[in-house]
Each structure stands twice: as structure tokens, then as C-alpha cells.
């Protein structure tokens, strides 16, 4: 995003809306730090600019910069996956897709959430660790279009420095891998240069309980008391 200096009257109305805190006042005009801007469009969509000085320049839609909006503005679709958002259907439709079966856990590591943003290179250390861990990486996630092939854990050089509001690594493990994966991931995540929100998807047991909660507690891993729950109302139902 950019601010037209000819139109800007430095009223500062847009400044507080920036999730990356990268709009600042200069000499009589306000400008957006292009290195930090993730092209989320919040400043523009807020509709607070009295002179319509905020705009998305053409270069924001050209690669490699174009991925900023794709991973930051939920209204912009990913050409590689033909859908919006930063993740996949994950457990939201698990009742009809059967993506995570009993005996398996899904995991999602969302880099830059909440509110800090991430460089695509922030994913690399963790991805390299995951590749060594015998986990099943989710290739339908839009992140995969920007990784080196064959998979080394590196982001393609032209995208490494692109900053996004958040990007997600999704993968699946077998139940028996839980402790090993958690123990190996914890120190790697501690070294990441941004924040990472960690999610775990699990099937309910036949009796309606959620055994993974006790397993996590035994491992000393705190799970929040709130969660997203697929209510099992999709049809046709996969693995009741």
C-alpha cells in the first residue's frame, strides 16, 4: 500500500489501523514503510482517509511482492490453491473428508500470529526440522507454492524476504509420534524470530471424550480451554 503525498493532508487518521504499525508521519506527509507493509489493505478498507490518498500500487500485485497480499488480505485468493485465507480446510470439514483419522493428529504452526507478521524465511528452520521428523506435510497449503523443489526446507530465494501477516505450516503425525514431535519442535520454535501459534487437531473418541487433552497434560503441554469443534454434522459422514 502507498499514500499519495500529493493528496495526503497528514491527518493521521489511518495510522492506528495498521496491524504492522508501519505508517508514520514524515515531513508534512504520512508514508508507509514498504519493507514492513504486508499489503493487508486494512488502511485502505478502513475508509478513514478523507482525501482518498491511500492506494494499492501496481507493484504490490507483481511477484514476488504479490504474495504479501495473498497471505495477508483474506479477500485475496491464492492462485496456487484457488481459495482465500492462509490455510486449508484442515479440521473444519474433517467430518466429510476424513483428513485426520483416529490414530492421527493434525498440527498447524502459524508464523506471525498473533499480530507480529513473519518473513517467509522465518518458516525455514522449522520446516527443515519437520522434514527430518517423518511427518506428513500438507501440500495443499498455499505456502508450498513458494518452497524450493525438491523439498529442502528452503523458501525460493525471491520470496524469502517477503513479509506477510501470517503463514501456516500444516502437517499430520501418528498418535505415537506426539511426544517426540513436541519435544523436538519446542527448542526449534524458541529460536524463531517471530511468534508462532501452535494448533493440534484430534478426533473425539467413540465415547465422546478427547483423550489428547490428558496426553498433553501428561507431557506438560498447556492446551487452552477453548477450541474449534467440528460438530459432526457434515454429510456424508466419514469415520463416525
Amino acid at each position, binding site marked *: 500500500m502507498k499514500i499519495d503525498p500529493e493528496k495526503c493532508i497528514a491527518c493521521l487518521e489511518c495510522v*492506528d*489501523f*495498521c*496491524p504492522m504499525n508501519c505508517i508514520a508521519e514524515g515531513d508534512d506527509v504520512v508514508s508507509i514503510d514498504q519493507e514492513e507493509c504486508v499489503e493487508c489493505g*486494512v488502511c485502505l478498507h*478502513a475508509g478513514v482517509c478523507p482525501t482518498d490518498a491511500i492506494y494499492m500500487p501496481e507493484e504490490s500485485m507483481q511477484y514476488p511482492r504479490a504474495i504479501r497480499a495473498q497471505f495477508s488480505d*483474506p*479477500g485475496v485468493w491464492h492462485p496456487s490453491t484457488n481459495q*482465500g*485465507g492462509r*490455510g486449508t*480446510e*484442515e*479440521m*473444519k*470439514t474433517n467430518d*466429510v*473428508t476424513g483428513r485426520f483419522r483416529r490414530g492421527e493428529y493434525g498440527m498447524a504452526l*502459524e*508464523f506471525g*500470529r*498473533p*499480530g*507480529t*507478521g513473519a518473513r517467509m524465511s522465518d518458516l525455514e528452520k522449522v520446516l527443515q526440522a519437520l522434514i527430518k521428523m517423518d511427518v506428513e506435510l500438507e501440500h495443499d497449503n498455499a505456502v508450498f507454492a513458494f518452497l524450493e523443489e525438491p523439498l529442502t526446507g528452503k523458501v525460493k530465494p525471491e520470496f524469502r524476504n517477503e513479509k506477510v*501477516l501470517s503463514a501456516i505450516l500444516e502437517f499430520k503425525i501418528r498418535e505415537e509420534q506426539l511426544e517426540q514431535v513436541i519435544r523436538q519442535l*519446542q527448542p526449534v*520454535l*524458541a529460536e*524463531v*524470530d*517471530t*511468534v*508462532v*501459534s*501452535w*494448533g*493440534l*487437531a*484430534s478426533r*473425539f473418541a467413540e465415547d*465422546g471424550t*478427547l483423550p*489428547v487433552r490428558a496426553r498433553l497434560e501428561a507431557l506438560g*503441554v*498447556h*492446551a*487452552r*480451554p*477453548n*477450541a*474449534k*469443534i*467440528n*460438530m*459432526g*454434522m*457434515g454429510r456424508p*459422514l466419514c469415520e*463416525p
Partner: protein
Amino acid sequence: MSHALHRHGTTEQLQNDYTFYARASRYVNREGCGPKLRKILSIALEEKNLVNYGSSQAGKSFKAGLKPDEYAATLDKAYGVAGCFSDKEAVRSLLKKLKEADTGISIVISGLIDEIVEIARGLDLKPHTAFLSLGVHGKRSLLPEDEIQQITTMCGHGMVAAKLSKAVIGRVKSGKMTPEAGAKLLAQPCPCGIFNTDRCEAILKELKENAPGSAKS
């Protein structure tokens, strides 16, 4: 997207904060799902205590001016319906009606796990899969204050700025803005409509009451 996960707060702070998401699967039932999504939207709109709703396809939420008809018109090209409640009974009522409607579209509710499971049991529903939050890792020193996180994480796409939250808290504490107006302003950047303005208003009200110089403090 896992946008309703990772809402920040203690068990007490997370009470009365529920989101719902009806989602068609691209692999199973997305083709021609528009009429079913419109049916789900109409059921949700029947609930008096629906706090907010919206979608990224529509580009804005109810709190930012999205009208039900406008929302309904987007659903042939969309794959989900989202909204939020601050009343457990409204969630129970919504699920009861959705069960009767039997659209076959997947329904996801976020909230306190034990409460959602209890509601499901009462309606003879069998929860299928849970997505748990194992918290925030990495460079936690970058995170803002606790009360700011309670507000900003109600938009899982991260569209609600910490700076805006801080500014609104300041205005509310100084009496320049009401908690209600503050919550409405903070809801504007979140197009999906899962930013719970009731919860936000309660947070702002509590911060105002506990501010130095207030009657309560």
C-alpha cells in the same frame, strides 16, 4: 484458515464467546452449496442474540454495515457462513435448528471445550474433531499486553491492530469514547464477522472501571 482458534484469555474471560462457521468442502459438497449456505444464514439470523456475521467474500461484517441480503447474494461464489454469539443458549438453539435442517454442510463451533461438548450431548450430536490451541511460541517478547491480545485475537486473520486497540482503550478510559462505540470501531477491520463486539465491549468497560481515578478503582 484457523481463524477462530487461538482466541486469547482465561477460562473466565472466554466465557460467552462463541463463533460458528458453516463450511462446505471443495472435495465433497461445495458444488452448488449456495442454497444450503443461504438456509444456514437464515437460521443464524433468526437468533436474536447473533452478535456479528460476515465473510471475506462479502468484504465486510454486519458491524461494518453488511446487510443480510448482501451477504446472501455472495453465497453462490463462497463456501462458508461465519458469525459469533455471546450467549450459550443461542448456540444451543442454533445447533438444534441446524440439526433439524440437516443441510449436510460441516458446522464448526468455537468456545470453551467443555461447554460445547455439553451442548452437543444435550442435542444428541456427536462432536467429530477438535482443534486445540497449544499457545504462542517463538519470540513472545513481541506480544502486546494481555488485554490487547484479548481484543486483537478475536480477528484470527490479524486485521485488528494492537495500536488501534491501545488507542481505543485510551479513549474509553478517558471518557472520550463509550465502550460500545470502541467495540464497534475495533470490529471494522475484521470482515469475517467473528469479532465479538459484546466481549470487546465488556473488556473495554472493565478496563475503564479499573482505570486509575475511576469510581471503582
